[in-house]
């Protein structure tokens, strides 16, 4: 394969923010030049990136690919294509499949299926408990050697405090994080949306912020007790941000994520009973969003993850109470998040960090260096136009999940090309590669 020169873009990586060019040779980043500099060797194809941002491929620590078991909602083939369209070159899939990813065989299935049918890197997350039942620990050692990058019973919290303690303790042997979906089920039973003014108005049963914060507080106490690595999935409330900030000040080993939808949409999206705005944890309030953005800015919240949760149209075409929770998020993530940059809430550099080298830090080096454009590293590169406006058309999604509350909305910021391992796995129609 001929080397590819990405020419004239604004290259942003950890510690780097220059206009220049990037050369990819044999699937690896081989040269970075500033300004008008040209590569030492002459023979290469050229992708013009003037006016575009060039950064490491995005990493999503939290998505649902639904395979095995729910292939009508998503598959590894469609989910990885959706990832490529969204600028993600590494996605970590949650184990709440059917059967769940709680043993070596299922992890091997994910890895071989991804190698055969996927277009970006898929890193599996294993279950905390056998069968996700919250009773006995899954065989974490075997899962670790099979290649999981974390453990989670996501979709369900690890409600049993004893089990959670053992999980945080036992996983220290493998230096892998426990990702908890923090939800006190006794407080959320039958809940449909954030508990507050809007749930009262709509007559829907609410999910109070306290249901999340109680489990966040408990998990932080257990992380302190055990010294284990805790990662809090989809933080949504001001109270959770405060708890995590204090825990970090105390030196507790905790990281946290927030989703694009919780950063940009409020509970008011549910007005009109839009089942595509039904998500767990639920969309919260403006005040929560403010705290989440503050948390991102001061590194209380380490990363942004999509919690991409595809469902079929039939799944969502029903009464609000009967619809499943979840938003299909891979293909709208960047466009949504760029609104925060355009509004001056966070910097472009921070946004990219939260999508690239910060999640790479949590994953570690088990799969080589990720989230960087360093010379010699497999070339995972995302190229996007920060200012291009486009209208969200779920029909055009590569994901089988068309379930987005953003259908028909105008977003500003669009992925133009995604390169995985040196290979162009997605490009917008307007991008052409000139053969050298």
């Amino acid at each position, binding site marked *: 394969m001929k080397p590819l020169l990405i020419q004239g873009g604004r290259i942003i990586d950890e510690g780097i923010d220059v206009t220049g060019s990037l050369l990819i040779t044999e699937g690896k980043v081989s040269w970075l030049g500033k300004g008008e500099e040209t590569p030492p060797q002459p023979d290469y194809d050229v992708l013009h990136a003037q006016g575009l941002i060039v950064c490491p491929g995005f990493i999503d620590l939290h998505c649902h690919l639904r395979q095995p078991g729910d292939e009508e909602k998503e598959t590894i083939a469609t989910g990885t294509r959706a990832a490529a369209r969204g600028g993600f070159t590494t996605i970590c899939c949650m184990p709440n499949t059917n059967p769940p990813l709680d043993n070596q065989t299922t992890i091997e299935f994910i890895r071989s299926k991804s190698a055969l049918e996927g277009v970006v890197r898929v890193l599996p997350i294993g279950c905390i408990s056998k069968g996700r039942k919250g009773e006995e620990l899954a065989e974490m050692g075997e899962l670790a050697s099979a290649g999981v990058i974390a453990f989670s019973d996501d979709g369900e919290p690890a409600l049993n405090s004893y089990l959670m303690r053992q999980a945080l303790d036992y996983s220290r042997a493998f230096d892998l994080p426990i990702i908890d979906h923090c939800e006190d089920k006794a407080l959320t039973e039958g809940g449909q949306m954030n508990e507050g003014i809007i749930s*009262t108005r709509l007559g829907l049963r609410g999910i109070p912020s306290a249901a999340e914060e109680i489990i966040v507080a408990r998990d932080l106490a257990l992380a302190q007790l055990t010294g284990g690595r805790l990662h809090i999935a989809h933080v949504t409330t001001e109270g959770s941000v405060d708890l995590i900030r204090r825990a970090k000040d105390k030196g507790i080993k905790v990281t946290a994520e927030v989703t694009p939808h919780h950063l940009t949409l409020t509970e008011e999206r549910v007005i009109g009973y839009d089942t595509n705005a039904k998500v767990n944890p639920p969309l919260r309030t403006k005040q929560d969003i403010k705290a989440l953005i503050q948390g991102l800015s001061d590194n209380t919240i380490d990363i942004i993850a999509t919690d991409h949760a595809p469902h079929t149209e039939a799944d969502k*075409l029903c009464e609000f109470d009967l619809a499943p929770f979840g938003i299909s998020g891979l293909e709208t993530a960047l466009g949504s998040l760029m609104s925060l940059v355009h509004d001056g809430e966070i910097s472009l550099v921070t946004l990219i960090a939260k999508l690239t080298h910060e999640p790479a830090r949590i994953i570690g080096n088990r799969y080589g260096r990720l989230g960087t454009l360093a010379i010699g590293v497999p070339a995972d590169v995302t190229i996007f136009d920060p200012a291009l406006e486009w209208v969200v058309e779920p029909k055009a999604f590569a994901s089988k999940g068309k379930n987005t509350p953003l259908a028909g909305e105008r977003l500003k910021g669009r992925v133009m090309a995604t390169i995985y391992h040196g290979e162009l796995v997605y490009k917008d129609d307007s991008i052409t590669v000139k053969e050298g």
Partner: protein
Amino acid sequence: MRTTQVKPKVPETTPVWRHHHILDIDDFTGEEIELVFHTTKAMKEILSRPIKRVPTLRGKTIVTLFYEPSTRTRLSFELAAKNLSADVVNLNALVSSVAKGESLVDTLGTLQALGADIIVMRHPHSGAPYIATRYIEASIVNAGDGWHAHPTQALLDLYTLYEHKESLKGLKAVIIGDIMHSRVARSNIWGLTTMGIEVTLCCPPTLLPVGLGEEHRQLPPVNIEPNIELALDGADMVMTLRLQLERQKSGLLPSIREYIQLYQLTEARLARAKADALVFHPGPVNEGVEISPAVAHGPQSVINEQVSNGVAVRMALLYLLTGSQKR
């Protein structure tokens, strides 16, 4: 028997009316509610005739689609539709193809294909009629959805109050009981406040939905007073709500006994309200729980008037809706 050809004396539908569906009362203006009052008055005149039937909706098909057991609301709509000479089809979703797993959207599509002009819908899940409107063209009348809304009940309550009072503005209303799970309470709060009535809610804090009583553009302004004696002081309208006996099992109340002690509307408590205060209950009544039998059947009770006005109000609404369909 020949139906009389006399036209009902109701005002022509005016630009005031802009509803193709009746989903909630929160999007009704005071003017629209007054139009409903005037139209209802004309319908009551029809109901006072020896032959209570006019041909206004002849050729229209009205389907009642009930996903919850109901006697009075369904009957009330059925009578209203028949009095206007519409063809009425009752679909009990609990024993139809719905029970075999047909989705709401499919059921509605079928009803539309069969030619329904108006679908009167009762559903246990909040918002179900809103979802319905996205997929069909027939008018939807919400006959109660989950905890959310019961607009025709609120309108008949308002009309009953209107019949007794010279002016609604500035009156004091108290709603006592399980506000949290009550679509009747939610719709009444909107309707009453729209008409300038001051509303006080009285209930155990566990049965009060979050945020009511706070100032917020998404909610109407109400007072909260958990003490029933204080809440009733000077009231013109007192509404008690049915207490579902399972509320105790779900832990919202320590016991029904204590609820009765603290919140039952008794004669002694009612004496704190104005002498001409009216007592409302959306039914069915748990006598001896939320209301004492003496009050339920007492001189201030308008519970039976609510039921008979229900037919006239629903006739008015069906009439106004078909007017909107012509345009």
